[in-house]
């Protein structure tokens, strides 16, 4: 190998050495920083932010130290410098090597012995590497001998690693409540990530979250109290832990470990129901004709996400005393995301509306809350009315009463309920009791049957009786009824079709067919009830009810005009009533502000305690804060500020916060700049 080639080899060796040296110094700086910080952390816990900063500084230091070292040794890249370096070590060259490099004329170094160049370069590189390697190794060794977790806290700082921090000394009498972390796993439907809080004092978590508080050490003897409930800690490896669920009410957890105590306040975050705004139609409207399409548009937003949204409508038809309703859903969506826009159109034609009908429409959205049930948000309701032809007529007609046929359903449903109840009690009743009660129902059923019979009889041409009978049926009546029953049988056996006028029947008979069948069914029911068999009577009773409902399908319209103005002559009516009332007793009401008042007393006691035992006062403030969180958020916030200020030793700030809390809860004092003439201070 000629001299120039050998020179280049030496350059490479020196360059590698310089690079390694830079790296070693960089690592040394980083390891030293980590080791120092870890030692400080052992003595005094460093906050998460500080450790993040240390990590960043360590990385930056490593890079900058390494880079600066490399930069310092950049001369190794120059052949001339390397040549000079060799010349310094081998004066026998007498600058021939440098001249050859500068002139490019290798003849100057032809025949020069180069066997010693490489070893010199290697030795030199090795020596340069020695010091940084020693530093790095020493720092690394310190990191290795540090307690477990100490290095991880520096190199991989994250929330919740405070219990990985080793304790110095490890006294068994020390509190196991420090260090402590709280892990919060929100309900799955929220899509929120689990979080950890180091040394928690206040934890905010969504309702339904799983909250686990854990610390280092044996679980035995560690108890958490929440109000009247208490939970003992369980062991998980080398840690103790207590798990609970976050409810809708704020609560304070009192953790006790022998004589040590810590309080953690848990503040629930309530999942709000979706907020829905109906933007179209923008207002209520009246349509002249039941035609067209009405565009519908709405917006729904939720704190965690809307899972379903739609428009709901209710159609009300009829007037006076008779109405029919039908409802439906249109434009259903199953969106994802916290905000959704809905749009659809309501086809008036498809609803088959008539004059006077009313449509109520609103937008509804649901969230995914599977903890306390889906939150349902609804928008305002818009009303769309179809104008009546006589919309602007003013005809004052009193409302007519219901037709006679309607009254035939008196108590049929009640009788069914009574019979069902009797049948249910049957196993526990004596036979004679059962028969007695069954016969009482039978008696009522008979009355009803007679009424239906009267109606049908009247319509079939007989004289109306118009009255219910009590007691036994008269022979005359019975005969008439039997005849009617025969007709009912023949009529009902002919056809089971709904009311129709085809087939040559008179309208009267056609209308009464269901009633006749009902009459028949009631007869059968009475028979069963008479022998104490309510269970066997029930199918007949239900059939009777069904048929009566069917008979009600006759259309009736009652005209309703403007309400009449009636002015009562109060003095003429005064005390004209026949009956006298009697004295009565009023119930006392409870105090409305009693919660606020008791909080005020507690607050006063806590302020009194501040001078004597600040730590207990801070704990009491936290508990009071939790209690007040739902009703008095401003007061709770002021208490939180006061507790924080006291913890940080800022007496002035604490006083201001306490004064603010006091005014928020108790109100500002009332002052007059002169002595009051009376003890009121208006």
């Amino acid at each position, binding site marked *: 190998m000629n001299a120039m080639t050998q020179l280049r080899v030496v350059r490479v060796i020196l360059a590698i050495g310089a690079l390694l040296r830079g790296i070693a110094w960089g690592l040394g700086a980083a390891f030293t920083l980590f080791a120092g910080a870890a030692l400080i952390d052992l003595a005094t816990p460093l906050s998460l932010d500080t450790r993040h900063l240390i990590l960043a500084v360590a990385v930056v230091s490593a890079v900058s130290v390494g880079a600066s070292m490399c930069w310092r040794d950049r001369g190794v890249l120059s052949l001339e410098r390397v040549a000079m370096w060799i010349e310094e070590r081998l004066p026998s060259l007498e600058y021939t090597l440098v001249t050859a490099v500068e002139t490019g004329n290798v003849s100057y170094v032809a025949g020069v012995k180069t066997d010693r160049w490489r070893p010199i370069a290697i030795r030199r590189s090795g020596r340069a590497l020695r010091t940084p390697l020693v530093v790095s190794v020493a720092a690394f060794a310190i990191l290795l001998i540090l307690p477990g977790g100490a290095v991880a806290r520096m190199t991989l700082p994250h929330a919740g690693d405070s219990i990985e921090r080793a304790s110095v000394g490890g006294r068994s009498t020390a509190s196991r409540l420090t260090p402590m972390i709280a892990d919060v796993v929100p309900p799955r439907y929220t899509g929120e990530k689990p979080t950890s809080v180091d040394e928690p004092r206040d934890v905010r978590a969504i309702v339904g979250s799983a909250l686990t508080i854990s610390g280092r050490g044996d679980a035995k003897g560690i108890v958490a109290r929440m109000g009247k409930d208490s939970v003992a800690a369980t062991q998980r490896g080398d840690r103790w832990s207590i798990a609970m669920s976050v409810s809708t009410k704020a609560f304070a957890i009192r953790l006790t470990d022998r004589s040590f105590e810590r309080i953690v306040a848990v503040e629930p975050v309530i999942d709000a129901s979706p907020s829905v705004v109906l933007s179209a139609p923008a207002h209520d409207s009246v349509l002249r004709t039941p035609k067209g399409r009405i565009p519908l548009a709405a917006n729904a937003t939720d704190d965690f996400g809307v899972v379903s949204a739609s428009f709901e409508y209710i159609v009300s038809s009829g007037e006076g005393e008779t109405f029919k309703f039908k409802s439906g859903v249109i434009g259903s969506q199953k969106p994802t995301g916290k905000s959704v826009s809905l749009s659809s159109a309501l086809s008036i034609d498809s609803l088959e509306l008539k004059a006077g009908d009313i449509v109520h429409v609103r937008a509804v959205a649901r969230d995914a809350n599977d903890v306390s049930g889906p939150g349902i948000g609804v928008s305002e309701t818009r009303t769309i009315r179809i104008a009546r032809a006589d919309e602007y007529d003013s005809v004052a007609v009193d409302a007519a009463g219901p037709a006679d046929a309607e009254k035939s359903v008196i108590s049929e449903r009640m009788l069914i309920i009574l019979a069902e109840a009797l049948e249910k009690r049957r196993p526990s009743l004596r036979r004679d009791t059962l028969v007695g009660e069954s016969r009482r129902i039978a008696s009522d059923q008979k009355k009803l049957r007679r009424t239906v019979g009267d109606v049908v009889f009247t319509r079939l041409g007989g004289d109306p009786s118009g009255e219910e009978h009590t007691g036994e049926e008269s022979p005359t009546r019975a005969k008439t009824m039997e005849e009617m029953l025969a007709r009912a049988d023949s009529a009902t056996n002919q056809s089971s079709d709904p009311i129709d006028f085809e087939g040559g029947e008179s309208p009267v008979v056609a209308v009464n067919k269901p009633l006749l069948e009902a009459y028949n069914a009631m007869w059968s029911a009475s028979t069963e009830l008479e022998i104490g068999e309510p269970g066997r009577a029930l199918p007949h009773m239900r059939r009777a009810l069904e048929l009566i409902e069917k008979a009600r399908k006759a259309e009736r319209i009652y005209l309703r005009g403007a309400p009449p103005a009636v002015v009562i002559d109060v003095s003429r009516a005064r005390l004209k009533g026949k009956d006298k009332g009697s*004295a009565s007793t009023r119930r006392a009401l409870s*105090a409305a502000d009693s919660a606020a008042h008791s909080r005020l007393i507690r607050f006063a006691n806590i302020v009194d305690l501040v*001078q004597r035992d600040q730590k207990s006062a801070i704990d009491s403030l936290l508990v009071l804060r939790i209690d007040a969180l739902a009703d008095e958020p401003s007061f709770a916030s002021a208490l939180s500020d006061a507790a924080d200020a006291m913890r940080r030793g800022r007496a002035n700030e604490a006083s201001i916060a*306490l004064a603010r809390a006091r005014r928020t809860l*108790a109100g500002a004092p009332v002052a007059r*700049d002169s002595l009051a003439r009376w003890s009121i201070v208006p």
Partner: protein
Amino acid sequence: MPSLRSRLEMWCRVAAFGVLGWLLGGSFFTSSNRRIERANTQNVAAHLESWTRAPSTTTLHLDLTAVPETWVVDWLAALRHSNHLVNWSGSPPAVALVTEPVSDPEGGVRIDIAAPTGADVVVRDEGSLIDSARISALGATMLTPIAIGNVTATVGSQRVGATPIDSARLKSVVVIGDAGWEGKFIASALEERGWAVTPHFSVAPNVDVTQGAPLIIDTARVSAVIAIDTSIRSHAAELERFVRSGGGLILAGPSAQSLRALAPGSVGARTRPTVHPADTMRLGTTGFYPVMSLNSGGVPLDRRSDGVVLAARRVGAGRVLQVGYDDSWRWRMAGAPGSERAHREWWSRLVASVAYVPPAAPNSNEGGTAAPLAHMVDRLGPAQAAVNLSGERPPVDRRLLLALILTLLIVEWGSRRLRGLK
């Protein structure tokens, strides 16, 4: 002829011996004149110990800008009793503080401060600052919902304090009248505030709505009675006995017409201002019964543009309040946000102002801190002139005299030595 210098030396020696003779003579012969020790507000406490050891011939004088603390005054009073002459001069502010529990179920403390007009007073308790005021007429009154620990008032450098006593023991409030919204909401408001209420509403002849025990109006059971209309006349005699024995009576609306002997004034025709649909209901928006011609002892407390709406009067040991409003319920139901609570507080305060409360035992130790100037005058006597108190010279410090003797001798000796003499 002795030179001027030698004369000077001689006089120095004479003067030195003269002062020495005076010192010696003073220690043998007690002057009939008293020695005066002085102190001021800031340093009097520091002097007390030394003054206690001083001979009783010493006059102890205080120059005061503020009254010292009670214990200092008491100490000085004790010195006075041991034949020290103790006197003081200066103009410490005359400040006094009284606290009284408000007769309200929710408690509260009324603080009355007497102080010179124009003074700034700051009131605080052990929790925080309560309020401050500039005195416009001899004092100030404050009402605070709660007082934490002792209450103190500061006027300049003068501090006064008092310990509020426990809340008043309250009995029930009777509300009497025809069934109607006003009676209902007055009873509701007071009950919501924590009062025990005994309503007695007439609905029909011999048909009443009542609550609790049969109606007996006396101070053993009842703190106050509220009459909401003229139906109160049937209880006139009973009410007069009740009020004269200390009970409180509130005559609301037109009810004062039925109890003229007790009412603070006569009842005028009800005012009926126009109320627009958009008007927010406030107290008196729909009008009131004004208090006309006040009876003897009647005091107007609140005036509106249409007349006096609130007046009070003491009758025997009790108090009667005449309130012109007969539909304060509208304020509660249809008022601005917070009106429900305001209505409740307003009615409670009215009742508190007249309610009969059994007197509580006064705090006998409080005199010194609550009215310090009065306390000091009581113990040490009134102020005296500040300077040149007759027959008494301020004592001369003996160390000064010794220093003077030495100086004179040194001057004499020095002069002689400079002249070459011994």
